[in-house]
């Protein structure tokens, strides 16, 4: 192996580290998108994002080839009225988790292509500080698993 190729590999490794930033510290669990009803103008994405590092990680954007754009939204239900508000970023606390769940904070995929249960969709997340992180979500029919809705667990 030549010095040049070792240097090349090292450079590629360095570049990979640099572009992922804290990405290695974030892990996605139960990352899924709701199957789209025909003609759906929007659908939602959910996950449990864990941050193993000792500093907060902020996600400032997301995109996918499966939809026109992705926004972060939070549903607040106050006095029986649901209101959605757009969030500029998602923050995952140091050593903690961020739960994206039905009826709470979620990814809103606007203008999605037809997504069918079982398909896998790649979503890229921009991290504060310049890194990116790409993860695959599974398309699921809503309500197909009891753990799709963590809030349901509160009602025995």
């Amino acid at each position, binding site marked *: 192996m030549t010095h040049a190729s070792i240097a090349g590999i090292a450079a590629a490794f360095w570049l990979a580290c640099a572009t992922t930033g804290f990405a290695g510290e974030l892990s996605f669990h139960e990352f899924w998108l709701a199957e789209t009803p025909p003609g759906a*103008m929007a659908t939602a994405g959910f996950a449990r994002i864990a941050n193993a590092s000792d500093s907060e990680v902020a996600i400032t954007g997301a995109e996918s080839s499966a939809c026109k754009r992705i926004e972060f939204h939070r549903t607040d239900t106050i006095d029986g009225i649901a*209101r959605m508000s757009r969030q500029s970023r998602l923050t995952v606390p140091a050593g903690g988790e961020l739960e994206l769940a039905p009826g709470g904070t979620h990814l809103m995929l606007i203008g999605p292509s037809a997504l069918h249960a079982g398909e896998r969709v790649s979503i890229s997340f921009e991290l504060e500080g310049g890194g990116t992180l790409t993860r695959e979500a599974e398309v699921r029919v809503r*309500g197909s698993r009891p753990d799709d809705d963590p809030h349901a667990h509160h009602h025995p």
Partner: protein
Amino acid sequence: MPPTWVRWAVPLLVLPILAVATFFVIAMLRAIPPPSLDAGPDVTVLRAPLPLPDFALFDHHGRVFDAGRFDERWSFVFFGYTYCPDVCPATLSTFRAVEERLAGEPNLQYVFVSVDPERDTAERLAEFVPYFHPDFIGVTGPPEEIVNFTSGIGVYHQKSEGATGPDYLMDHSISVMLIDPERRLAAIFSAPKDPDAIAAAFRKIREHGTAP
């Protein structure tokens, strides 16, 4: 032995007093409303079912949908919009799960009323609603007729603050309303998430019946 007049005086005095007291006790009992049926947490069963207002809407097949469509059957009704990515599809999925549990129940229908008629045309609802179940009914119509319906049973909806352009969101009540076969609001499910609880509550309410 006391004189005859004494023997008669006691019942003659006591009986009218008893009668008057009984009358007042019955009147008091009638004035206190009976306790409402306890159908579980997050379910309010109305002591006096509330008659629906008049409204003129249409379903996703283009057929007239007015209060008469609630006659002689029970109806679960939810108010939302098809652009909604979170609460509305989640609630319609809950409807689907409730339908599975109550599949044997006769004369029961599931209705999704759009609070966003600007975008939710009958055609749009015809795509969206049957995805959750082919028998579910999507309802839309003129905005003022939707307000006639929703304001009459306390359902809130409006465009979200800062809504601009075609991608606006709606704020809306998440409650599911149960309408009885005499077109009256019978019960309100304020956190409609658990299909088992909703199905059990429905059976209880149907068995108990609503007041005449």
